[in-house]
């Protein structure tokens, strides 16, 4: 558990802002104690300071995870957000997409969201904006990046991709081992 370097912190926050915008602040300033980001084996964990202190009693070799894993830095030093961050991203995300029940399964198997599966979309989503993808019953099931803005979506072809798949909760089953 070490403190993130300047560069990595910047990358992390850039990525987070892409999905939750200015709400990033809310992740840092919380009423229930201070939270911080820590890095372990290139994985970034979001953890309360109180818990962090306890976690430091555990030897690094034996520590598997603490708090919530947000994602990892790749070998090329880019930050990739994991599905495990959904718990914190979903409530703060300003832009959302809802998919129809028929398209839920498709998305959960790692496919993009296509126009025919699109149930609803937030107004004024700019192109290439990070979005959280929900079912029609408001269960967040993953996140992605929109391929077209909301206005473009209206006139899109039924098979056209609306949002690119980035992570979905199906990964909890598909790739449990590589999750963290």
């Amino acid at each position, binding site marked *: 558990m070490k403190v993130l370097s300047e560069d990595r912190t910047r990358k992390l926050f850039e990525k987070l802002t892409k999905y939750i915008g200015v709400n990033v602040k809310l992740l840092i300033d919380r009423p229930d104690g201070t939270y911080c980001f820590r890095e372990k084996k290139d994985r970034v964990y979001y953890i309360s300071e109180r818990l962090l202190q306890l976690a430091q009693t555990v030897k690094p070799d034996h520590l598997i*995870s603490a708090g919530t894993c947000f994602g990892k830095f790749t070998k090329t030093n880019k930050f990739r957000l994991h599905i495990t961050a959904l*718990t914190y991203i979903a409530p703060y995300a300003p832009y959302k997409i809802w998919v129809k029940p028929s398209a839920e399964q498709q998305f959960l198997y790692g496919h993009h969201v296509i126009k025919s599966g699109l149930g609803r979309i937030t107004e004024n989503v700019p192109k290439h904006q990070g979005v959280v993808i929900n079912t029609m019953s408001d*269960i967040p*099931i993953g996140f992605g990046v929109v391929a077209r803005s909301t206005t473009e979506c209206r006139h899109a072809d039924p098979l056209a991709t609306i949002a690119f798949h980035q992570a979905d909760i199906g990964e*909890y089953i598909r790739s449990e081992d590589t*999750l963290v």
Partner: protein
Amino acid sequence: MGRKAKFDETKKVKKGPGRKARKQGDPVFKKGLIDHDKEEKQLSHRQKQRAARRAKKKKEVIDKRKALKEAKKNVAKQQEKEIVEDSEDTSEDENVNGFTDDNKEWLTLKKKDKKKLSENQPDSDSEDEEEVEEDEENASEEESDADDDQVSAKPVKEQYKVGKLDDLFEDSDDNDDGGNDQESEDDPKTNKMTYDSDSSEQSEGDSEGDDKDDDKLPIEKANIKLKRKQKLDKKLADEELQLNIAKQDVFAFPSEEELQNPTNLQEIHQRIKDVVTVLGDFSRLKEQTRSRCEYTELLHKDLCTYYSYNEFLMEVLMQLFPVQELVEFLEASEVARPLTIRTNSLKTRRRDLAQALINRGVNLDPVGKWSKVGLVVYSSTVPIGATPEYLAGHYILQGASSYLPVMALAPQENERILDMCAAPGGKASHIAAIMKNTGALFANDANKERTKAIVGNFHRLGVVNAIVCNYDGREFPEVIKGFDRVLVDAPCTGTGVIAKDPSVKTTKDQKDVQRCFNLQRQLLLAAIDCCNAKSSTGGYIVYSTCSILPEENEWVINYALKRRNVKLVPTGLDFGTEGFVKYRHHRFHPSLKLTRRFYPHTHNMDGFFVAKLKKFSNVIPEPVKDEDDEEEKEGNEVKQNGDATTEEQLKPSNTSVKRPAESTKVEPVNKKSKPNSAESSKVPKVSNENSPKSNKKRNKKNKNKNKTADNTQTSEATKQDETETNKTKVVNTQQKKVKENKNANAKIVPVVNETKKEENIAKANVGNNSSPKKKKNKNKKKNKKPALPNATTAKVINQSEAKITDKVQIAAAKKLKNKMKKKQKKVGQLKEKKANNIGDKTKNKKTFKKNKMKSN
């Protein structure tokens, strides 16, 4: 694969699967079979309707009859009036189908029989196949028909017609019935002749009588018939009952040949049932020449083959359950428990989840009043472990029994809690959910691969207050202590979840069990050490296993009660059976009643054990860890002298209540034996029983001892061994003397008692050897075998032996010092021999035991 070859010429293999080919013809039953099967059949819809109508009519008839009787009384035998009444009757009959109603009435009274009749009819294709009883019914019906015929001569034609109509109506749903009825109409007289020789004739006569005095009311006729029938039925029933009784009490013990060549499982199953009944009422049902032992052995063998258990496990289970319950348990262990899920209260509520899942085509129900988060899934059209709700972490698949330890733990918000054996994180996430993501939760598991499952589940379920780590649970007290609550769901043999993993049946043996409970004891002690007794809210430890063996449950708890400052508290679970206080030769602490056991056959959940402990002091009773080893070794030594049965005698005296006294007794000895060790100083304030005088004496002795010990350490290995043997011999002689003195000298008795107590303590710990220490113990045993000790003995053993000798010596030395000095030379040689002899005996006993184990 492919068509079936036509090997059997006689049987014609149908070509093609055609739709009609699938419909099988009505089965043909032998005479003997039918009447038993009949009763189980259910009424078809129409039959039910008919029955309802019949009942209604019957009611009407009864009312009418009452009215009639009253009317009769009033009129008082006036012929004319009777005639008038008759006409009234007929007129009434016209309205309400009087005669058939009568008919109806006695049919409905015999509802069951009627049922049988109507249902059996389609089955029986020919008259021959009709059953005796059935015939009777038919006959009676026929009788009525005949009556109808007879009556038909009379002016009441409608009755006849209506009766017929009714019959037709009854059989209107299937054609066969009609045909049958006709058939049965044909054969009434022959049938009658065949079956009830006495009554049928009577009935014939009666019916003739009826013919004669036709002025009898139809109701009366019916009544007579009814009575006759009841008599007959009763007679038949009695016969049947007697038959059954006759069948019951004959169970022939199978011969050797039969046992060696079992024909089929069905037979074995039958035999199991029989033996169980025999054992249930042994004195009456046994064969005179057979003992109970033989029956149980037979049962054991049969159960092993039928349920495919290995002999060890079956024997253990037989010791655990009474026979009847055992069979129930085994049956329940064959069937999987219902699938249950636990709502993740961090993300959703049970009602919402249930609604969402019902919308997906899942059929579910709350698991019971005792849980607010559990749901039982009966059936599902979608895979329950891959719905979006599951992936979003709204629930987790978890057996109902797994809720129990967490409920017993009753975690509070803002506590620090440890789950020592957490994978795959079901219980741990439950804890986090109850804590509402506050406080801190340590989820530990020894297996690194399985910790991934914890991580996955925690993230899916949105648990954010958790630290997942990978330690051996036994080392955990060295990592971090001071938890408010600790949950130990210890690894076990899994004898409670045989339904889940049938391999348990065949793979587990004594060694596995031993390995398990050794580990469990260490884990439990570690868990207790991790817990903080001074916690304002907690200080609780919950121990649970999915095994039902007392070795892994009560015994482990009992061990912990002796070793740590803990006591049992109620688990807070209002169901489940109490833990054992005594099991075979074991006598556990009476408070073990507070633990809870759950069985698959009584609670319909996996076999489980839950115990809740409260830690009341952070002081560890034993002064140092080395003490453990020592005690255990001593225990082993003592065990050679005494049998396992000694434990039984000792257990009650070694309860937790008396622990402090024990420790005080043990500690001073330890101090003496290792005056140099720094560890002993850790617990300096334990009260010292012994007077300063004796201390001085002992110090002297110990100095000597230490010198000798030093010498032995420096000298060569062989020499060490020799000195060791000498020492032990000396010890033996001393012990002997003590015993002698006991007999001879009344004064010395208290001392002897004390030494004995010490031995007892050691004995009590016999079974408590932990696995890492096992090696040493093994070596020890080798050494102890009477001849010269092996050259391979390690220093450790020497030391420990030295300690032991010290102990005994000190104890003996207290007041016998002088006497010993005098006698030692004289008696020494003799005693040596005796001691050796004793050693041989114990050895023999041991080998005998081992052999027994093997044979088992």
